[in-house]
C-alpha cells in the first residue's frame, strides 16, 4: 500500500475555460452537467443534470462545452509545479494528480510539510484562479477522497477515515445500488463484511471495491517517468574510411543500445543511422525492421547504408567535363562522401514493448519471410528505399490507375477505394450502346444515385460519365467504365504514340456519343510500319474528374488485335492515341 498525496483542483473544466468561481457556469458533455462552479452550485445545479433543467434552475448559467484536450493542456501547469517536488507524478485525470510521498516526505520533513509546500506552489502557479486541495492517505483512492476534504490522514488511519463515508463514492453504481438495498450504505459497513464472502457473492468487481473500502488499495501509481534519451553515438578517431571499420564500431554501439532496450523490455522497430564525415557532411537514413532490430541487424544496416553512400554515388562535377582526369582523380566530385566518418549515431525512432516472437509452424511468419525481408532491405540499402516496392490494388478504370506501388516496409494501403480484387465486368458481346449512362451532373442526391445505378449496369462500350458523389464509407465504389478482365500484362511507363486509321487511311476518332468515327483498320505503333487490325472492341469512354478542371481526363479506350495475334489497349486522349497497355 502506497502512502499517496493527491492534489485536486475542483471544477477543473471551468477553471481551464477561464471562468471564475463566482460566475454561475457549468461544463456539459452529452447534454449532462459534468462540472459547475460554486456559484452555479449555490443555485442548485449539480452534476448529471440535463442542460435544460440546469438552465431552468439557474437562468444566467454560462454553458461551456467539455473539451478534455484543453483541460489536459491547462493542467500541465499544475503538474509542472508538482513535478518540482518529485519526478514521478501520476495525472489521474485533468484536475487530479497523485504522487507517492515516501521519498519527498522524508526529504521535506513529513507529510504535513510536503502538503503545505505543494499547496503553496500550486496556488502560486494558479494565481488565485482556483484553490487547490491536497490530501494524503494510504492508497490513491483514499488520498483522492482526503484531497476533497483537504485532509491529511495519519498512516494506518485510512480505514477509520473511510468508514463513515457513503458507498456511492466507490464509482460502482450497480454494486452500490445493490448493497444499498441490502442495507449497507457506508464504506465501514461494507468493509466489515468478510472478504471471502464478498468475493463469492460479487466477484472480482466486488472484491476490488471491498479492498478500496477497507483502505487496502494495492494499485500502483502510473507515474510518468521521463523518457531517457536512447540515442547512442561513438566518435571515430581516427576517422573510419573503410566500411568494415565503421560497421565494426556500429556493432558494439548496437550491442549497447539493444542491451539498454532489452533491460527495459523494449525492442526497436525503426532506427535512424546518422553519420558525419570529417568535412562536416551529415548522412542520415531511417531503417525499419518488420519485427525488432538485433545488434547484428543494425550492424548489417550500417554496412549496407555506408556501402550505398561510399560506393558509386560519386560523379564528376567538373565544368567543362572535358578537362577532368576522370575517376578518383576528379577534383570536383559530386555526391558520395569526401572523407572518412568521424561520428556514428544510432537513434531509435520507434520503440515498442518487446513481445518476443515465435515463428509459425503452419502459416504465419516464417523463416522464409524473414529471409525475404532481409534481402529486400539489403537492396533498399543499395538502391534507395523507393527501389523495392510491392503493389496494392485499388479502384480505378485504367490498368495503371488501379495500382499503387508501396515502398517495401511501408503500410500497404490502396490509392483509391475499390473492389479488393479485380473481377471481370459483366456484359457479353454487347453492341456499342450509346448515351444510356451519360448522366448530367447530379443535381440532387437521388439523381446522383440513379446515375450510379445506371452506370453500374453499363456494358462495355457504354459511355460513362463519372458521378461526383463520394461513396459512403461502407460502400465500395464499383468504378463503372472499368475495362473488363483480362488486363494488359505490360503497362508502358512511357506510353508510345500510335496512329489509328481506317481502311481509307483516315484517322480514327471517337464521337461524343462514344462511337468511333470510322472503323479502325490499321495501326502504326511508335512510328513503325502500318499493320492490319484483325478484330477490335470498344471504345470504352470515361470522363473522369470532370468537376476538377486541373485533373480532368476524358479518355476512350480501344482493344485491338492485330493480324499476327498481338493485342493492344489503345487510349485516345486529347486527340492522340497511345499504347496504354500491351496484352503480352
Amino acid at each position, binding site marked *: 500500500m502506497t502512502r499517496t498525496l493527491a492534489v485536486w483542483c475542483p471544477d477543473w473544466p471551468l477553471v481551464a475555460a477561464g471562468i471564475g468561481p463566482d460566475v454561475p457556469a457549468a461544463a456539459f458533455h452529452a447534454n449532462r452537467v459534468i462540472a459547475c462552479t460554486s456559484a452555479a452550485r449555490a443555485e442548485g445545479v449539480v452534476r448529471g443534470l440535463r442542460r435544460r433543467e440546469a438552465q431552468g434552475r439557474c437562468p444566467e448559467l454560462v454553458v461551456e462545452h467539455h473539451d478534455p484536450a484543453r483541460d489536459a493542456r491547462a493542467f500541465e501547469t499544475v503538474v509542472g509545479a508538482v513535478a518540482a517536488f518529485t519526478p514521478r507524478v501520476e495525472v489521474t485525470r485533468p484536475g487530479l494528480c497523485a504522487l507517492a510521498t515516501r521519498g519527498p516526505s522524508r526529504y521535506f520533513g513529513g507529510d504535513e510539510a510536503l502538503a503545505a509546500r505543494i499547496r503553496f506552489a500550486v496556488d502560486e502557479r494558479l494565481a488565485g484562479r482556483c484553490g487547490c486541495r491536497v490530501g494524503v492517505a494510504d492508497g490513491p483512492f483514499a488520498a483522492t477522497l482526503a484531497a476533497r476534504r483537504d485532509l491529511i490522514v495519519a498512516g494506518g488511519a485510512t480505514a477509520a477515515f473511510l468508514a463513515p463515508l457513503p458507498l456511492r463514492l466507490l464509482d460502482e453504481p450497480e454494486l452500490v445500488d445493490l448493497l444499498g438495498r441490502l442495507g449497507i450504505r457506508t464504506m465501514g459497513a461494507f468493509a466489515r463484511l468478510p472478504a471471502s464472502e464478498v468475493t463469492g457473492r460479487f466477484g472480482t468487481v466486488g472484491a476490488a471495491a471491498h479492498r478500496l473500502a477497507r483502505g487496502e488499495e494495492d494499485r500502483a501509481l502510473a507515474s510518468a517517468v521521463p523518457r531517457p534519451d536512447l540515442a547512442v553515438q561513438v566518435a571515430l578517431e581516427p576517422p573510419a574510411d573503410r566500411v568494415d571499420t565503421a560497421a565494426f564500431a556500429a556493432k558494439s554501439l548496437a550491442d549497447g543500445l539493444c542491451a539498454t532496450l532489452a533491460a527495459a523490455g523494449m525492442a526497436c522497430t525503426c532506427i535512424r543511422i546518422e553519420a558525419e564525415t570529417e568535412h562536416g557532411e551529415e548522412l542520415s537514413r531511417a531503417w525499419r525492421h518488420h519485427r525488432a532490430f538485433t545488434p547484428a541487424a543494425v550492424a548489417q544496416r550500417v554496412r549496407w547504408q555506408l556501402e550505398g553512400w561510399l560506393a558509386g554515388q560519386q560523379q564528376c562535377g567538373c565544368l567543362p567535363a572535358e578537362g577532368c582526369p576522370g575517376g578518383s582523380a576528379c577534383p570536383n566530385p559530386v555526391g558520395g562522401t569526401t572523407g572518412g566518418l568521424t561520428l556514428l549515431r544510432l537513434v531509435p525512432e520507434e520503440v515498442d514493448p518487446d513481445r518476443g516472437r515465435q515463428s509459425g509452424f503452419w502459416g504465419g511468419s516464417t523463416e522464409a*519471410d524473414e529471409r525475404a525481408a532481409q534481402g529486400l532491405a539489403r537492396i533498399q540499402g*543499395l*538502391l534507395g528505399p523507393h527501389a523495392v516496392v*510491392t503493389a496494392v490494388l485499388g479502384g480505378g478504370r485504367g490498368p495503371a490507375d488501379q495500382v499503387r506501388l508501396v515502398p*517495401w516496409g511501408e503500410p500497404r494501403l490502396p490509392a483509391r477505394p475499390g473492389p479488393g480484387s479485380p473481377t471481370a465486368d459483366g456484359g457479353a458481346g454487347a453492341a456499342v450502346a450509346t448515351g444510356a449512362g451519360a448522366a448530367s451532373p447530379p443535381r440532387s442526391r437521388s439523381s446522383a444515385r440513379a446515375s450510379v445505378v445506371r452506370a453500374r449496369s453499363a456494358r462495355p462500350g457504354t459511355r460513362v460519365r463519372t458521378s461526383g458523389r463520394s461513396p459512403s464509407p461502407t460502400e465500395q465504389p464499383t468504378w463503372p467504365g472499368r475495362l*473488363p478482365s483480362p488486363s494488359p500484362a505490360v503497362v508502358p511507363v512511357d506510353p508510345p504514340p500510335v496512329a489509328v486509321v481506317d481502311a481509307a487511311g483516315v484517322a480514327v476518332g471517337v464521337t461524343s456519343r462514344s462511337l468511333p468515327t470510322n472503323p479502325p483498320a490499321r495501326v502504326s505503333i511508335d512510328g513503325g510500319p502500318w499493320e492490319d487490325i484483325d478484330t*477490335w472492341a470498344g471504345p470504352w469512354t470515361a470522363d473522369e474528374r470532370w468537376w476538377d478542371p486541373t485533373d480532368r481526363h476524358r479518355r476512350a479506350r480501344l482493344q485491338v488485335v492485330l493480324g499476327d495475334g498481338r493485342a493492344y489497349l489503345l487510349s485516345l486522349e486529347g486527340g492522340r492515341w497511345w499504347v496504354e497497355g500491351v496484352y503480352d
Partner: protein
Amino acid sequence: MHLVHATVLAGECVLPLVPALAATFPGAGLRRGSTVVVDAGAGVGAGAGAGVGVGAGVGVGAQGAVSLALLLATGASGAGSWCAVVGVPDLGLVAAAELGARLDRLALVPHVEPRQWVTVVGALLDSVDLVIAHPPAHLRDGDARRLTARARERGTTLVPLRPGRAWSEGADVRLTVTGSRWEGPGAGDGHLRSRRLDVTVGGRGSAARPRRLQLSLPVGAVGAVGAVGAVGAVGAVGAAFAGADADRLPDGPIERIRTAG
C-alpha cells in the same frame, strides 16, 4: 535451417505450379535452383512493331512471354513463396493479380541500372524463392553463368524473362511462346476474353526433348488457367471455374499436349 532439416522432402524441392503447367514439368513443379528461361519466339509478333523497346522495360512485343512468366509466379506466390520481379518497370500488376499471383508476396525492383543488375539479382537469389528478371541489353555470359550457379546453390528458381542473347545455353528449362491467339472481340463488339498460347518446352535433362504445349488463359477465373491435357488438371480448372460466369469459360476443350516431330 539445414541443420534442422536432416532430410529434404521431395515436395520441398519444387515450387508449386498452376495445374496447366504442372503436367509439363518433371515433379509437377518448378524445381528449386533451376533456371527457367521464358522467351518469345520469332513466330509471334514477327511484324515490324514487335521489337520496339520502351524505356528499360520489356517493350511492346505482345508475344505472351510476360503472361507466361507471371503464370510461373502465380503458383509459387499462391503457396506462400516469395517472388521478385527485377527490371520490368511496365509490368501490368492488375494482370498479375488476375492470373492469381499474390501481390503481397511479389516484390518489385522496377528500375535497376545495368551495372547493378547482377548485384541486385544475386541478392534476391539469396533471399526469395523465385526471381523473374529481365536482363539489360548486354549481359555478359560469365555473369549469367554465375547467377545460374548461385540460383542452384541457394535453391532459388531464376526466370530470365526475354533475356535476348544471354542464357542462350545453360537454362534447365526453356519456355518459348511460339504463337498467340486472342478471342472475344469482333468488329467493335465484345472484348478480349481468352487467349491460346502455343509454348515450346525445351531444355536439358528430362526437358531435353522438345514438346509443344497449348495453354488457354481464360479471363475472370482468378487463380485458374485453362487445362492442358491431363485429366487431373481439367478437374482443377473445373473447380476453379465454379464461381465464374458460364460465358467466360473457354469455348472448347481442344487443349492437349502434343509431342513435336
